[in-house]
């Protein structure tokens, strides 16, 4: 596989368009993490042929508690009772997917590299809870949604995976590629009163 190929997250045009609105002290900032790879993993946690080899390979436990993140070597997000998302540096994603596939080859499991199908946006800043609350019906109060929590929900009119990565706060928003342009435009509009800046990772 050629490592010379350049990945594009597809928001390059939008960044150029929104670039003019950069400001010194924005209430919220969005970092487009095109450098991250995404792997969708399906399998039954009760299956001895699945969980142990996967955890061994990853070197960390899969989050079994719904809507939590396990964040050690990779960020692993609970998506459903038999579904996880692994977020890892893009460069190694394809290879990790292949190794996961091999590790689970003896059982009913599914591994799909979906790095090109979705994009992670990191949202930071003092106002980001208020900003998210404009379009998301989840209760994001620190006492309810703490670091290490994640949830799939709607943000404006897009489906997203939302996770609180740290309490500063830093939210990760994972959105499908085809909705990412819309979602960034929505964030730019909704964030205009507190000031919002976009940048590439």
């Amino acid at each position, binding site marked *: 596989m050629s490592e010379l190929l350049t990945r594009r997250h597809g928001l390059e045009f939008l960044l150029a368009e929104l670039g003019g609105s950069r400001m010194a002290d924005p209430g919220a900032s969005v970092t487009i993490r*095109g450098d991250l790879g995404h792997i969708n993993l399906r399998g039954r946690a009760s299956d001895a042929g699945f969980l142990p080899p996967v955890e061994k390979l990853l070197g960390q436990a899969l989050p079994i508690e719904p809507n939590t993140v396990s964040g050690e070597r990779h960020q692993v997000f609970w998506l459903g009772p038999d579904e996880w998302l692994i977020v890892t540096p893009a460069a190694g994603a394809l290879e990790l997917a292949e190794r996961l596939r091999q590790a689970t080859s003896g059982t009913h499991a599914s591994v799909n590299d979906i790095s090109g*199908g979705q994009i992670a946006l990191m949202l930071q800043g003092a106002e980001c809870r208020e900003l998210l609350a*404009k379009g998301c019906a989840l209760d994001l109060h620190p006492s309810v949604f703490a670091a290490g929590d994640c949830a799939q929900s709607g943000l404006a009119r897009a489906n997203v995976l939302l996770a609180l990565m740290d309490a500063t706060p830093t939210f990760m928003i994972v959105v499908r590629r085809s909705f990412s342009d819309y979602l960034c435009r929505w964030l730019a509009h909704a964030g205009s009163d507190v000031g919002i800046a976009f940048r590439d990772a």
Partner: protein
Amino acid sequence: MQPQRLPTGGRIDRSKPLIFRFDGRKFEGYAGDTLASALLANGVSIVGRSFKLRRPRGIVGGGAEEPNAIMQIGKGAHAQPNLRATQVELYDGLVARATKGWPGARFDLGAINDAFGKVFSAGFYYKTFMRPKSWWHLYERVIRASAGFGRAPVEKDPDHYEHRNAHCDVLVAGGGPAGLAAALAAGQAGARVMLADEQNEFGGSLLGAKRNVGDAPAEEWLRRTIESLAALDNVTLLPRSTVFGYYDHNFLAIAERCTDHLPEADRAGVRQRLWRVRAKQVVLAQGAFERPLAFCNNDRPGVMLASAVSQYIRRYAVRPGRRAVVFTNNDSAYETALDLAEAGSSVVIVDSRAGGAGPLGERAAQAGISVIAGHVVTDVVGRRRVRGVQVAGWSGNPAYLVESSIRIDCDLVAMSGGWSPAVHLHSHAGGRNVWDAERHCFVPGETTQANVSAGSCNGTLSLRGCLREGNESGRAAASRCGFEAPDIELPSTSEGHENPLQPLWRVPADAEPERCPKQFLDYQNDTSVADIRLAVREGYRNVEHVKRYTALGFGTDQGKLGNINGMAVLAECLGKSIPEVGTTTFRPAYTPVTFGVGAGENVGDLYDPVRKTAIHEWHVAAGAPMENVGQWHRPWYFPRDNEDLHTAVARECQAARQSLGIMDASTLGKIDARGPDVVDFLERIYTHNVGTMKVGRCAYGIMLGEDGMVMDDGVMARVGEQRFYLTTTTGGAANVLAWLESWLQTEWPELEVFLTSLTDQFSTIAVVGPNSRRVLEKLGCSIDLDKDSFPFMTVRDAELGGYPVQLFRVSFSGELAFEINIDSSYALQMWKTVMAAGEEFGITPYGTETMHVLRAEKGFVIVGQDTDGSVTPVDLGMNWLLSKDKDFLGKRSLARPDCVRDDRKQLVGLLSPDNGTVLPEGTQLVETPDAPVPVPMCGHVTSSYMSACLGHPIALALVAGGRARKAETIYAALPGREPMPVTVTAPVFYDPKGERQHV
């Protein structure tokens, strides 16, 4: 110069004079005024006209209940119709116009209606305007022109609005004494509290009150309480915020007005915000509305609610009249009399009760106010402004007629018929309201959601009671959320005993209501006592019928003033009690809310997401107009040099057929399906035999609904023993995945299959035409692309031009074609790479329109265009796709009698003999050219194009029994033209043997 402004007092800022205009006249008010208080300060008495009779009307109330002062505020794009002057905060430069009356509210030519008041009785329009039949639209034009209040702006709204989702333990609706006490108790307990109040300041009835709470003046208590609340991190204070709807599962909607109170030049940011609140507990504390009294001409400017009079004096330092008559059936209006006296007005109290008031009566006497007990105001003198009242003795006898009366000159009537708790939100929430026979009002009854009412909206009118109930309900609500409030000592209040209210729903006059001047119940709709009686006489006896027939309560105040009196009059007519007549259901909105705030940010460009492919920006740069397909934007065609659609499409088609075309097909739905039972599962879903497919093979597959109708189609490929790659239509992608999951999870959970959407992961680039193989070879492909190594309808993993791809040899055009499936991160580069490599072949990008033409030439259907939910695969001639060896979803339905008819509409081709007319899509087909109306139709055109490569138009159609009618002539019924004969053909026009795609 504000003639009615008191020299001192009030919560206005006399150092900040504000200039405003009303109906073109210039006035001055102060910061802290409402438009209503400023108008009253300036002695403006007529602020509007009534809806039907166009009677002059003045300000009656002080808040949300105001029915008369309905204003158009602002101009141009910033105009806001129908605001109540009582709720508009004054700002510098405010421009207001009355919304009723032509040419104006002061002088209105429509006032002639009043002279015919008896003709314009309730429901008169149901009884006339019927002849001649054709004139109704003329009558209606007149009716419409005279209806309505304000005008919608004629420019696009320049403001923006937003939504805010919120969660809390305790939401307190209303920031008067009860609400403040509740919020404080819950907040101090540690609960997450939201306190919303519709006014600019918290405090409700305590604003401007001249009484003590505890050992301090009320306003001091207010200041301390609000400070305490503001200091709590767990409390959110929302002034200027109306809780307008209480929906299921403790979801409440609040409209916050952020900038409406500012001069236009100072407004920035969000104009209004919709709080969408999910509360664990709700404390309702919206207070109560004072009831008017129904006496003759009780709508004259200068007749006001007593509490509103007090409010104007205390809070705004405005004296609404110099010579006042206070007309009451209860003690509370005595406070108003005292306020008036203190403001220097002369006051007479007319009390319907023979015994008068309790201790307040003594205070009134001490203040030198004369009280005429056992009397009622029967009529008002004066037309454009109160000049006096007729007062008569009344024994309390329900026979209601009174005799000789005396006249008292005055310029203000402050009336009080008691209080109606604001049970609206309780009612929205599904709670019942029950009649309290002691207090003569509806109070909140059993509730169905997690809410409690406190204070005067619960029928508790005393300040002491409000504070106590507020505190208790706040504590209890917090406690139910797991927070314990510390005990606090409630401040004492000085309140004496009150004499009970005497029910007085309709004030007796010297004649029955039909003969005496109108006694209004609903000011805005001109509904009078006589109208209610008329409705009953005519058989409209249910309260809902009465309301609808007389329009009682259908004004913009939604009956906040008049409903109870109207129901009581109805009860009297029917000889029933008020609770027997029943209550009416209050529906949101509590007060009106703009569409803009309801819509929030989801308007304009953000109305609905635009989904874009990874190659979208290239299409835009190439100048392609976009077609909406589902939420996607797909390039429609790629015009060169100002080409029109048809020229461009003809060129694109020729390129694809003769050399090389390229299309972005990324919007197709893509699903990875795998697992030990995947074959078993897909056998049940698809109509064809899936199990016999070899790895690497592709198949065209359709899926049916259980009703047997074609639901979706697409190529599916077996990419492993236990792994399939399914594609769906663009519009059907999400539905198909949800549909498959629903069967897996609800019906066949024993099947081990995982489904994963790959729609966004892979972009699809279709490379189409005789030179497609050559261009891929030129790029450098890791697999052999020749016919035998990579035959039609197969799939291979490959490396193409250095990119890992999944290569499909499929064709939706009938030409030799390849579909490159590639990680979307690389799709744009791949597209550009192919474009560059294809230059020597004249590679031509094409859009959805050319795709449609190419596929129609081949007779390939588009689900949703050539089908409509009533088309079976048999109708489409796809019997070959229906396995006889297995069951599949929808199979049973195909055996129903109606599905086996041989005269069902079937897919055919149509050719026009003249070879010139492109039949419009949607053209209906008929058997004979000259059948009489209604003309039986035998089908319709589903797809129709000019075929550039065939040189003539082609059409696909659904025709009854069509397959057996090849070469027959039927007729296309073209609007405005002679029916055109067309010939039924097979639906495949081009390369019927399919040789071109197999090369």
